[in-house]
């Protein structure tokens, strides 16, 4: 009896999981499909869309109109650069908060998170003026700094929760063996937290890749990443679904593939604990 219940339960959970998964994936699937349709077919009813002819015309047009490779390289540099810079700052910060917390550590953590609560457009003009005066408009370095600052609270929070799971005794033992602070963080703490760091890195790369406010506002041509590439394909006057879908597919493909291959790492990282 008990076994039957378990089987039914498994079946229900499986069906539910697949349904939710498909629902979440459906918009992406639809974008991919529309990218291979003509503009006229892309606005038809869903069934008519599926039965219409397939074409690469939109991809050809996107290739002709935009320099995809430049935008792609900018996206790679911005997301990897900002993630690395964030890690360099966040690992020591999270270490101190996890292992030598002060009276105000919790408040500090909350304060950091609260910076995420302000709408970005509120500081657009001051940021723009600072970028103008420092000559950072349309530069990769300027955007790397901004993206680092935007994601830093999340990176510190994630690393802090992972580090909290590591028993302080292990680090203490390392210190007893004569390890200095640098060795302690680099050779003891970091290797143990690799799954946690990996999932933080992945999440941060995805967030930086998708950031579409500052990357649009602070760039023009040479530092513009894929977000601007996408923004150039929607239009208030004229049909654009197919071209926009083709451009979107090209923009999300790299990050989708990265996510696909690293999903085990992501899941392991999110359920990570040193003594489990």
């Amino acid at each position: 009896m008990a076994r039957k219940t378990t089987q039914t339960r498994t079946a229900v959970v499986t069906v539910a999981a697949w349904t939710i998964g498909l629902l979440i994936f459906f918009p992406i699937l639809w974008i991919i499909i529309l990218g291979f349709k003509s503009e006229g077919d892309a606005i038809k009813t869903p069934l008519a869309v599926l039965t219409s002819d397939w074409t690469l015309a939109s991809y050809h047009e996107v290739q002709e109109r935009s320099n995809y490779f430049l935008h792609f390289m900018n996206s790679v540099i911005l997301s990897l650069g900002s993630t690395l810079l964030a890690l360099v700052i966040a690992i020591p910060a999270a270490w101190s908060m996890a292992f030598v917390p002060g009276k105000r550590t919790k408040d500090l953590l909350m304060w950091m998170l609260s910076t995420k609560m302000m709408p970005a457009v509120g500081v657009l003009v001051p940021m723009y003026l600072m970028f103008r005066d420092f000559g950072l408009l349309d530069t990769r370095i300027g955007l790397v700094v901004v993206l680092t600052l935007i994601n830093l609270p999340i990176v510190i929070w994630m690393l802090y929760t992972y580090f909290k799971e590591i028993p302080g005794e292990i680090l203490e033992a390392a210190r007893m063996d004569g390890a200095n602070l640098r060795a302690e963080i680099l050779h003891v703490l970091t290797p143990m937290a690799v799954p946690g760091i990996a999932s933080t890195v992945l999440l941060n790369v995805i967030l930086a890749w998708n950031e579409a406010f500052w990357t649009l506002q602070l760039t023009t041509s040479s530092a513009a990443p894929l977000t601007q590439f996408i923004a150039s394909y929607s239009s208030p006057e004229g049909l654009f679904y197919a071209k926009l879908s083709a451009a979107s597919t090209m923009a999300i493909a790299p990050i989708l593939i990265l996510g696909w291959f690293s999903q085990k790492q992501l899941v392991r990282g999110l359920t990570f604990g040193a003594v489990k």
Partner: protein
Amino acid sequence: MKLTIRALLGASVALALAGAAQAETTITVATVNNGDMIRMQSLMDDFYAKHPDIKVDWVALEENVLRQKVTTDIATKGGQFDVMTIGTYEAPIWGKQGWLVSLNDLPAEYDVDDLLPAIRGGLTVDGNLVAAPFYGESSMVMYRTDLMEKAGLTMPEAPTWDDIKKAAAAMTDKGAEVYGICLRGKAGWGENMAFLTAMSNSYGAKWFDMDWKPQFDGEAWKATLTDYLALMNDYGPPGASNNGFNENLALFQQGKCGMWIDATVAASFVTNPKESTVADKVGFALAPDTGKGKRGNWLWAWNLGIPAGSQKIDAAKTFVAWATSKEYLELVASKEGWANVPPGTRTSLYANPEYQKVPFAKMTLDSINAADPTKPTVDEVPYVGVQFVAIPEFQGIGTAVGQQFSAALAGSISAEEALAKAQEITTTEMTRSGYIK
């Protein structure tokens, strides 16, 4: 010693490189991504052949993203762009602020007097041409000739709103998903308010009287909104309060609209057999009127302006003069045919016998000439702009009022409530901004 020689050599190479770089000026052009602008990017070889010392970097963006971006840049003198594509709404406001470089000194062969007076008037601030028009558009009636024939009606070349109502009633067949009329309903100053403001002009309505007092409590606005709602409720498609240009374009191309009153640029889309199922069954007429002397059509142009913060004004001027010249129109015609020439900017284009053969060319010119941004409606008004009011506050007010009218179309409030709220919102904002003393 060796080191010094090396350093000197290095420095001289660097200097030589810098010299070479100086000879070539790179300008950054921000533009909307509509068809005419995209086409210009593919015709740049002609410009480079004539001006090998100037290189152009393009930033093509969707209209709303572009507007936010260029506004931030010009207001902070960011200097990211050397040429900006701006609408007829921004040009007078920015010109007044001194944000745009005067284009009065363009060369004689540019022939500035050839620009259409209606368009040029909207771009001139205190005697200075602050932007050069790249293409102009108005709005007109597009209708299905086959459905009109079936209903036993003919569309006059210059219809009244009563003609439109009669035609909409005759063409509507909701069972077959054919709706007599498709109009904009989506809220926004450039969406439903562009249409409704233009329509209200033909009813003799206005946004403000000469003391900047809002006029939504008058009879003319009431008649406009009541007729619009009646038309759309009786003969319009379902869910019309979410429809903008593209939604109506899709409906019309699928054969679901009997009539559509919208931008003249739509003519080339609905008659394109690759996209439209009704390409060979479309007729055109002027926007309707009520016999009061003004038609319900708008006037818009995309123009090239040079921000005062640019460091490369001379190169930017060279580019603007090329892109908006008569020669550019001929270049497009020679490569892509006369139907693809950017319309609505130059008198000489409409005198060209080749261009007169293009269907909808005459209708576009007549529509543009029927709109006067300096005298948009029947009575005298203190503002410039046909389907908008060229004051900085209008984007906010126009969208807030548009939301009320869109709600009335969706049926969640009545026409009277919408007008009362529109009057209240506009009065509050105009008082706060100091227009109403």
